């Protein structure tokens, strides 16, 4: 397929994405985690139809890297904010559940990284730094859960209430490990030197870039109200932070996330920017998910395929275990622990995007292995995540009984009044 056709295909996906995806995920239509986009990517990629090859995707690598940074920035903007059905009402995420989510994410990352580090030693001979870095990257990328699942529950089942907010905050908190953790890990993996000063400086690069450029953007956006200029500033700071991060051998996702986080914290500009960037998120996110699917080449994973299965199983076990411990605090009904654990075991866009960043930077067996782990958890999570969450919320009586939910959304995410409203 020529780059022109590839670009046309991605634009078509973006077109569909902007129609069916609003806010954080695929709402109203399709599967809860949007796995159909990953599957369609796998279908057109070298695994099945072979319409797109990896060398053609490498032509679009700068566009993909910029897209990763953009999605990370929009996620950062909404970090710590719960959106009500219809996405017009914003509330602050409960801080306790949010912190608990971060701890759960960290524990999952450590557990998974430990497993992968030990298992990699059995399968392949790798430099200790690469082995550790890869193990930690997998732990990091798979540490969170599929947040779009909560959007789906709100949209499809009209979920609303304290438990819904707490679950959303817990899942949101667990994302921080994947989004910010890539900054030190990228240095561990991609930095040419290893002296302490250089490593610290490189690890801090996304932080410095994100915060400094975020401040610059905030100063400017306080005065600048014109639409075209606002977009110029937003796109400019995001691309500059992504470009400088890549130049410094650091993570474009971490820089984008920190930049978005800072912009989203501003009480004046934050809500406006969330509203402004919301429709563009699906446009960028869904083509990236398709590309993540297309980038998969199982033949390159080789014998590490067994390890992929191991990673998926270990992750489910860790999530179930953590859910059993925390279910009482978050859901309030300990009997729902298994269902809650299954909902936490889902995995979504962030895992795929973080894995895609690794694959773009490290093509070959390890890159494919990391991507395969992320895609496998996302696809499998689709089977039990939605069921788990529905049961959890049903046990807390936070689902809309009529079941009509809020499927009729306007173009900007405002819902027509239905069901419980």
């Amino acid at each position, binding site marked *: 397929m020529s780059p022109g056709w590839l670009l046309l295909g991605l634009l078509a996906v973006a077109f569909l994405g*902007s129609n069916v995806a609003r806010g954080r995920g695929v709402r109203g239509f399709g599967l809860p985690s949007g796995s159909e986009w990953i599957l369609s990517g796998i279908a057109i990629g070298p695994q099945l139809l072979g319409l797109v090859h990896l060398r053609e995707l490498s032509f679009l690598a700068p566009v993909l890297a910029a897209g990763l940074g953009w999605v990370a920035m929009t996620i950062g903007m909404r970090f710590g904010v719960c959106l009500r059905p219809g996405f017009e009402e914003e509330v602050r995420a409960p801080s306790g559940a949010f912190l608990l989510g971060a701890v759960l994410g960290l524990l999952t990352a450590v557990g998974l990284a430990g497993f992968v580090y030990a298992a990699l030693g059995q399968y392949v001979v790798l430099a200790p730094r690469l082995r550790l870095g890869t193990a930690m990257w997998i732990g990091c990328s798979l540490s969170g859960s599929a947040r779009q699942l909560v959007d789906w529950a709100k949209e499809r089942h009209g979920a609303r209430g304290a438990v819904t907010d707490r679950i959303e905050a817990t899942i949101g908190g667990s994302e921080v490990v994947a989004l910010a953790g890539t900054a030190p890990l990228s240095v561990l993996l991609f930095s040419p030197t290893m002296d302490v000063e250089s490593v610290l400086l490189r690890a801090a690069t996304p932080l410095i870039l994100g915060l400094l450029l975020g401040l610059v953007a905030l100063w400017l956006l306080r005065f*600048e109200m014109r639409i075209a200029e606002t977009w110029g500033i937003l796109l400019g700071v995001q691309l500059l932070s992504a470009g400088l991060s890549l*130049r410094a051998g650091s993570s474009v996702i971490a820089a984008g996330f920190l930049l978005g986080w800072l912009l989203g914290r501003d009480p004046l500009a934050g809500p406006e920017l969330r509203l402004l960037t919301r429709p563009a998120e699906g446009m960028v996110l869904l083509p990236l998910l398709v590309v993540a699917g297309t980038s998969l080449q199982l033949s390159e994973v080789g014998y590490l395929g067994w390890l992929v299965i191991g990673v998926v199983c270990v992750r489910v076990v860790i999530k179930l275990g953590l859910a059993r411990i925390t279910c009482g605090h978050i859901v309030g009904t300990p009997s729902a622990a298994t269902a809650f654990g299954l909902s936490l075991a889902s995995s979504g866009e962030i895992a795929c995007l973080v894995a895609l960043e690794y694959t773009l930077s490290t093509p070959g067996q390890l890159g494919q292995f990391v991507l395969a782990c992320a895609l496998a958890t996302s696809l499998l999570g689709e089977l039990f995540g939605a069921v788990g969450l529905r049961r959890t919320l049903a046990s807390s009586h936070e689902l809309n009984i009529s079941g009509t939910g809020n499927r009729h959304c306007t173009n900007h995410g405002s819902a027509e009044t239905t069901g419980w409203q």
Partner: protein
Amino acid sequence: MTGTAASRSTLRQRAIELFALIVCTCLALAVTRAEPVADERWNVILAIGFLLLAGTMLANLVESLLLPHLTAYIVVGVVGGPHVLKLFDQDTVEVLLPVNTLAISLIALAGGLELEAKILVNLLRSLFWSNVVQTLVVGLATAIAFMALVPYLPFASQLSQRARFAVAAIWGLLASSRSPSATLAVLAQTQARGPLARWSLTFVMSSDVVVVIAFAFLLVAVRPWLIEGDTLSIARLSVLGREIVGSVSLGICLGLALIAYVRLIGRHLQLVLLALGFVVTDGLHYVQFDPLLAFLTTGFVVRNLSDQGQSLLQAVSRMSGIVFVVFFATAGAHLDLPLVTKLWPIAIVFFGVRLIATWVASQVAGRAGRDAPIIRRFGWTSLVSQAGLTLALSHTIEREFPLIAVGFRSLVVVTVAINEVLGPIVFKYALERSCETSKHEAIRDKLPSVV
């Protein structure tokens, strides 16, 4: 807010923008100096990010000096580019050139969308005389200047007398080309509406079509003078005819398709424009049609055969606001500064001759075409700018006549650079003097999203 408080607030805003610009530039400098280039591909993102952010900020700053945004974009490109701060190198600038494809398609589409058949008919007399007189007077004057300056032009002094005449004729026709992109960018910034804005856009668009066609004929005609043993070939003219007819036909089809899309779906026009700009342009190049002519026709069809023109024009304007920053900044980064410093005295002479010839032609054509006084007075100001089209035509010369390629192109680049920087300033000044500019712009709390 009182006048003093407002001006203090504006001053504070400008100070913040200046400080932010310095911070961003220092940050970019620090990282690029500290880190060697590991992978050239990533530099593209850095370059676009810097050009977009710095261009937007500097544009606001130069607004206070009553300069057009375009000047700021070009300056940012020159400063950030391979000759001054070296934030990105020449290879990255070359990689950025596909942005031009998108920009040119938007420019042509917007140009077509602005051309209303009724106005075109009203201006027909004026357009006819302006095209004839401008092309003849400017072409002749600059061709004569070229012949006079041949001793100072190493690439031309070695040619035979016939070849010199041929090159002078090409130079003259190139001087008659204008910049639709610069005209549209200034109009988009100033939101000018009125007889001068309307005439300028209509004339620049029509003149480009005239120049592109005349250029193709001229190349066929002067070929035997520049290439030993070459003869006049009618076959080349038939290729040209096919290109024109094909481009117009395809443009009509695209226009009808766009009308149907806007009427039936009407959303996410930015994505459609991206597809048109990148993918359809590639297809047009493949079948050897002219994208400029095709998109101009598309815009014209949408404007005049439906009532969807305004919504499409709005989408184009919103998108071009961002695309223009990168387009003109890339043009600035593409400038070969060492060459400019070497050839500027000759280029200044050409600039002066072209400027005077344009003014004289404008007076003559204004009388013959019975133009309104405002057009007679200020119409010439929109004809000073030169940019992408002139450079594209010079590329053709380079390809067709390798004998004069390097020297000729260098001279074109330097002359265009001067016209590109000074032209928009003159045009913006004229629009302000004629009271056609507007302050109204879409703001965030009125329009939630551009998508």
